[in-house]
């Protein structure tokens, strides 16, 4: 899309715009309306008098709204139509009395100007006398310079200050002219056509120039004919040095700038150079519409910046990708050490198995928590419903199976009716597993068949703590059937149970502290008569012990790990599966302790030696 660049403000405009929509500068040459300006049509450049040129220059510089560089052929006057009131005003000026008023020039121009100003403000142009322009009067009437401006031989020796005082009337004339100009501008700002005001000022200036006395023309023309004046004074042209003359362009400005030969006939009609022929055609090329510059979309950066950006992009890209582990080779010292540790531990565990070594030594005294649990279970009668919550993962079967099997063995000996439940999805199967393990310990065989129902597996309790609370309050509603889908509460042992407090004993087997705590928090408040015993792993014992040490006790007994199982078996005089585990457990534990001591000591010596060598090197 073509656009037009405003030569004044540099902003883009539509190609059909006549004026800039930002600064209101004219973008297209002013068109001539022959009907409104018939007197300006057909005039050749030669017919343009210097006075006329001056008139155009002054008028164009006054309005300040026409674009600089607007060119037109000489003889094409500006086409600005004046409004009616301005036409009336122009006629009034033409017909007014422009007789000179020396007194006014010297002493009293200000009252007249104020009067003119008031008339402009009021918009009333009825009094011709109020429109008299002193400087125009002076131009019409004065054929020669005023007496005080005539420079006689006797005045040549005047000082500079006196000469300035003699030109005071000229400065007043200029100020008066500027005030009249200001009044015209003020009127134009009130909503009148700016072009009409411009025309008015042009006309008034034209009349002023037409009536300017000859001595004023001499003053104006003086600088234009400087060379003639210099020759008249007998001054010869300056002789330039050869080097300076060589730097001057050999051709004319038309040759240099590629201006057509007939361009000198064109007269500038706008801007500060209005009225002068042969102005360099700067603006037409600037104002010509052209396509917007196509700036490259690629960021202009240096090579270093580009490399840094690529590195940064690679870092960002690599954030979301899995970085492969560095290839350290198949055999490294750490791998060897890990393998050695594993071999030693496995060897220590297997040696007691193959040597059939029996338990060397039992823990002589069972802790209070184990004794309490054993005493509680010993008080359980036959067919007493005991709730067993199996809450441990299959991975901890090695430790917790041994501990729970000892307790279940005792319960089976007591003839308790076991009710298994779990809030762990794998808990129901783990319950079946531990029953099978417990059956291997003793001579009892707990089964759950249609003909013989010695335990029941209520299955999974969903809902986490809320499910536990719901089960504790109403187990019938929470788990109405067992894991096989058979009705669970039709057994005679189960029928009197309405809540968890109706069980004779509640046992929780867990290695997870959160699940252990959930059972205490949700079920313990409802357990008024039924004791609560925990079978936990060795790592969880410290987490449960505070509830056992509390007063009153929230947990009435604790059996922890393989050691607890051995101790519990010792309390009832039975040897459970913990007895089978103990030699390997003891041997593996001893091997682990030795490895930690030896390996830790060796590493400590290496570190100390390295530090010592480092200090020596640093000291040297």
């Amino acid at each position: 899309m073509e656009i037009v660049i405003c030569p004044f403000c540099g902003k883009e405009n539509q190609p059909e715009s006549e004026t800039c929509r930002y600064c209101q500068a004219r973008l297209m040459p002013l068109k001539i309306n022959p009907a409104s300006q018939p007197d300006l049509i057909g005039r050749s450049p030669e017919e343009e008098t210097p006075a006329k040129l001056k008139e155009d220059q002054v008028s164009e510089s006054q309005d300040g709204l026409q674009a600089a560089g607007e060119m037109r052929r000489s003889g094409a006057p500006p086409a600005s139509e004046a409004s009616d009131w301005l036409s009336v005003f122009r006629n009034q000026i033409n017909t007014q009395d422009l007789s000179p008023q020396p007194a006014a020039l010297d002493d009293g121009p200000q009252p007249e100007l104020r009067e003119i100003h008031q008339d402009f403000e009021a918009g009333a142009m009825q009094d011709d006398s109020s429109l008299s322009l002193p400087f125009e009067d002076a131009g019409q009437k004065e054929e020669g310079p005023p007496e005080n401006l005539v420079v006689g031989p006797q005045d040549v020796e005047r000082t500079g200050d006196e000469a300035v005082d003699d030109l005071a009337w000229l400065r007043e004339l200029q100020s008066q002219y500027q005030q009249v100009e200001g009044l015209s501008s003020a009127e134009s700002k009130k909503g009148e056509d700016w072009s009409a005001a411009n025309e008015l000022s042009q006309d008034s200036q034209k009349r002023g120039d037409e009536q300017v006395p000859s001595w004023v023309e001499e003053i104006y023309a003086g600088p234009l004919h400087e060379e003639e004046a210099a020759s008249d004074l007998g001054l010869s042209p300056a002789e330039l040095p050869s080097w300076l003359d060589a730097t001057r362009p050999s051709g004319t400005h038309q040759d240099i700038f590629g201006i057509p030969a007939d361009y000198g006939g064109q007269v500038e009609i706008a801007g500060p150079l209005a009225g002068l022929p042969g102005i360099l055609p700067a603006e037409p090329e600037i104002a010509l519409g052209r396509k917007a510059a196509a700036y490259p979309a690629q960021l202009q950066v240096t090579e270093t910046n580009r490399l840094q950006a690529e590195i940064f992009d690679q870092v960002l890209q690599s954030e979301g990708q899995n970085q492969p582990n560095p290839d350290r080779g198949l055999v490294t010292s750490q791998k060897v050490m890990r393998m050695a540790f594993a071999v030693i531990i496995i060897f220590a565990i297997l040696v007691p198995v193959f040597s059939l070594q029996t338990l060397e030594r039992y823990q002589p005294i069972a802790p209070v928590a184990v004794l309490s649990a054993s005493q509680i279970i010993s008080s359980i009668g036959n067919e007493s419903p005991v709730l067993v919550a199996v809450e441990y993962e299959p991975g901890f079967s090695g430790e917790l199976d041994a501990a729970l099997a000892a307790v279940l063995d005792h319960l089976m000996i007591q003839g308790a009716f076991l009710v298994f439940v779990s809030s762990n999805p794998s808990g129901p199967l783990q319950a079946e597993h531990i029953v099978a393990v417990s059956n291997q310990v003793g001579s009892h065989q707990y089964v759950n068949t249609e003909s013989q129902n010695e335990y029941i597996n209520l299955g999974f309790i969903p809902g986490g703590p809320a499910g536990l609370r719901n089960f504790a309050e109403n187990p019938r509603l929470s788990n109405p059937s067992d894991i096989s889908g058979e009705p669970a509460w039709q057994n005679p042992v189960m029928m009197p149970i309405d809540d968890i407090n109706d069980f004779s004993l509640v046992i929780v087997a867990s290695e997870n502290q959160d699940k252990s705590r959930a059972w205490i928090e949700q079920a313990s408040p409802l357990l008024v008569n039924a004791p609560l015993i925990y079978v936990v792993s060795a790592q969880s014992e410290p987490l449960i012990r505070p509830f056992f040490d509390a007063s009153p006790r929230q947990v009435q007994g604790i059996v922890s790990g393989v050691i607890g199982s051995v101790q519990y078996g010792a309390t009832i005089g039975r040897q459970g599966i913990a007895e089978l585990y103990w030699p390997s457990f003891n041997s593996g534990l001893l091997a682990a302790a030795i490895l930690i001591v030896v390996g830790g000591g060796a590493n400590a010596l290496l570190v100390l030696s390295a530090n010592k060598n480092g200090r020596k090197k640093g000291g040297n």
Partner: protein
Amino acid sequence: MKSNPFVYLLVAIAIASGATVLVGYFFPSLAGIKGEMLDWAVIFTAVLLLIGVISLVRTHWRKIMQDQKDRAYSLVLIISFTTTLLVAVLSGPTSKWSMWLYNNLIIPIESSLLGILAVFLIYACARLFNQRMNFYTLVFIGTVLLAMLGWLTIPGVELEGFKDFRDWLSSVWAVAGVRGIMLGVGLGTVAAGLRILIGADRPYGG
């Protein structure tokens, strides 16, 4: 918070449910409503578990279909899931075949992982001096060794002193630390419950 009416509905339901269950603890006459709310919670949780299983299978099935990396593991999971499901559905959850899968696959695999973990922990303890050698490392290693020696029974060696020291550590230091943790957990639970009750915390979204 954006003015989404659905969010206000969620907040209202959450606050009403929590307040109902909480009030049910203080007024036995409202225990029926509380129990009903707990039943709903249990049912919703069970449904969520089912949805989780379906999502797990769907995710791994998509990995297989899209030939993504490590799709072999996804294939193993799909086969294991399908086999276990078929065995449990056809023969029952506590049948012989189901227990065979549990006793001979699940328990050994998970126990092996814990066995490997034990070996790595022992190795890490031995190399701890190499990584960081300071007072706290000495305290940690010393405590571990004393606790282990307290469990040991070595023929011909009297370790009663280690046993007493281990019991002292377990009943004093460990219990004291755990009680502090339990107090913190309790206070945090109360604060979290209150935040949910007043709608300041919305874990359900919004």
